[in-house]
């Protein structure tokens, strides 16, 4: 009898919050890792289609909202720089600084991780992007460690849109771009965001409160400057990709 009561309290609480923020969206309430859904490959003989499974690579248990909080993912920029499209992801503002709602962030991040793992599972090329000099080495190392690619340098125009000319040969472009920040500097968006959209390359992007999430396929609202936060993202994406690849190896062995 008690459970429903708590549930109603919770709904009431949510309603209050929404009133306070003037936001109209449904709140997601996942913080703790869900109990693992068993990979049906183990108990059932029939191989399951990974695409039909909601969380085939168990990316759900990679992190908790507490981890995000500890990594300072919830810090946005100052109020004045807010991009209107980022409004739905905010929890509020404190001392003039915007704060992200980590429940929403967690949801988006899990979707993004799941997608990255799927791409890795299918042998796709994943390219990491970051234009922040402080974090770029970390990002490059992540890419190297998970056997993928990185571009943290000046973006020469046309690398995607004019690839055959730029590389002097027919070139396979990445199948997924992961932006650990989507801005070139505080004013301009990274050109690769636009170019990926042009070339129909899906993108995952950590979008801070001053970024525009519109061209990003899987936007993840969160802090994109702090090294700790970037380290967490790198760790998570690396783990997801490695899980995807491990599954792939397993399948390869089964098939052969």
């Amino acid at each position, binding site marked *: 009898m008690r459970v429903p009561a708590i549930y109603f309290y919770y709904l009431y609480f949510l309603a209050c919050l929404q009133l306070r923020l003037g936001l109209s969206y449904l709140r997601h309430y996942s913080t703790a890792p869900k109990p693992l859904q068993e990979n049906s490959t183990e108990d059932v003989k029939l191989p399951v289609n990974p695409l039909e499974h909601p969380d085939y690579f168990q990316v759900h248990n990679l992190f908790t909202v507490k981890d995000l909080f500890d990594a300072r993912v919830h810090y946005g920029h100052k109020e004045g720089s807010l991009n209107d499209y980022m409004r739905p992801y905010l929890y509020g503002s404190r001392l003039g600084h915007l704060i992200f709602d980590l429940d929403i962030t967690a949801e988006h991040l899990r979707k993004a991780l799941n997608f990255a793992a799927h791409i890795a599972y299918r*042998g796709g090329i994943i390219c990491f992007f970051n234009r922040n000099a402080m974090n770029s080495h970390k990002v490059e190392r992540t890419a190297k460690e998970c056997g993928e690619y990185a571009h943290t340098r000046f973006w020469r125009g046309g690398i995607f849109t004019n690839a055959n000319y730029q590389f002097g040969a027919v070139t396979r472009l990445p199948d997924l771009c992961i932006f650990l920040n989507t801005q070139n500097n505080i004013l301009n968006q990274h050109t690769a965001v636009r170019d990926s959209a042009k070339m129909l390359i899906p993108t995952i992007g950590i979008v801070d409160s001053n970024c525009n999430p519109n061209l990003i396929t899987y936007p993840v609202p969160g802090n994109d400057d702090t090294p700790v936060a970037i380290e967490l993202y790198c760790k998570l994406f690396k783990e997801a990709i490695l899980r995807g690849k491990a599954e792939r190896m397993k399948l390869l062995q089964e098939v052969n």
Partner: protein
Amino acid sequence: MSLVMSFTVKNLLPATICSIRSNFPSSIHKYSTGPSKTSSNVLDHLTDWETLSKNRKTSKAMKAYLERAKEHDEFMKRQHLEFNIGKRHLANMMGEDPETFTQKDVDRAIEYLFPSGIYDPAARPLMKPPEEVFPARKAAEFDEAGRPHHFLFYTGKPSFFKVLYDAAEHIQALNKFEDKVIRKKATPDPNGSLKLEGSVWLTKEQLEQSLVESIKEIEYENFKVVMERLVSSPYAYLCKDFIEKYRKPLAMQRFALEIPKPSYDEEGRAFITTYECLRKKARGEVTIRYPGSGKISINGKDITYFEDIQPREQVMFPLIFSGMQNSVDVECHIEGGGPSGQAGAIRWGIAWSLRSFVEKDMLEKMQVAGLLTRDHRRRERKKPGQPGARKKPTWKKR
């Protein structure tokens, strides 16, 4: 004979013309084909999975690459054939055995048959094996599925940015090491220090050559900043190998020429003769005898051969500089030019001969003082319309 000549030159031409550099996209590269996979129902819907799907697809990138490689192979084969024929004809022309005609002989023959006064040797006619004439191709940078081999491939300059990446990696490792040392309250190893005095960073061109990538000025500046930062660490000696890969020793060519061993005359004195001592229009030869008493003879006269003080000083300078003015005898024959040219020629000749009799550090000092440097300046010609080489007529407005 003329028939043979024209035929030969015709065959010679292709390889000669080849010296014009052209850009060819890519080259041969061996790649391994993975083991063939069996089909499975699970895999049927994974259409983009080249390595797994039943009917394995080679990526477009690889297909294009293979086509190019084949084209290039054929081209090189043709060039080789032409080169070999040309070489045989050349040997026949020179009246030598085509079987034992080496590249050295080819170069000599070309120099003889096509004398060229062009200053830059790179612009002179040449006949070299095609693999030297055509620039080396990069091997395929991706595998069969089109996946690049290098993790920084999409930056367009993977090798260069890999260098920066490695440098950053080293800097972080050194910082960590330094922290550890400080925590243990130890001091840096005094023996392990990096000696960088005798070398400089690779120039932009050298770096480009070693990386086979063109880099921009600003990127080269970044490279230097990063490397300087790495070197500034007190523990930089730990990554000595990495640093030295990008440094070049300063030219040691000053003593690259062998210093001749002195010969001995019938009195048992060591002597060295330097022929062809040139300066302006003067030319002569200088003989130095050791041990001696400081006697100087110029065309049979002593130092008073020169009437002015300055040429006398010129002649004495290398002897006084090296402190040998009383321990050697100088004998020279000089002709042509005026007093200053003759004095300069003798000065250089004495300094050049003294190399065999002085210590190494004195040699170094003489080099720094410019005693061992030939002065190649010649008189500049007079220009028409003006009274001298540079002098202009007095300018009068009206």
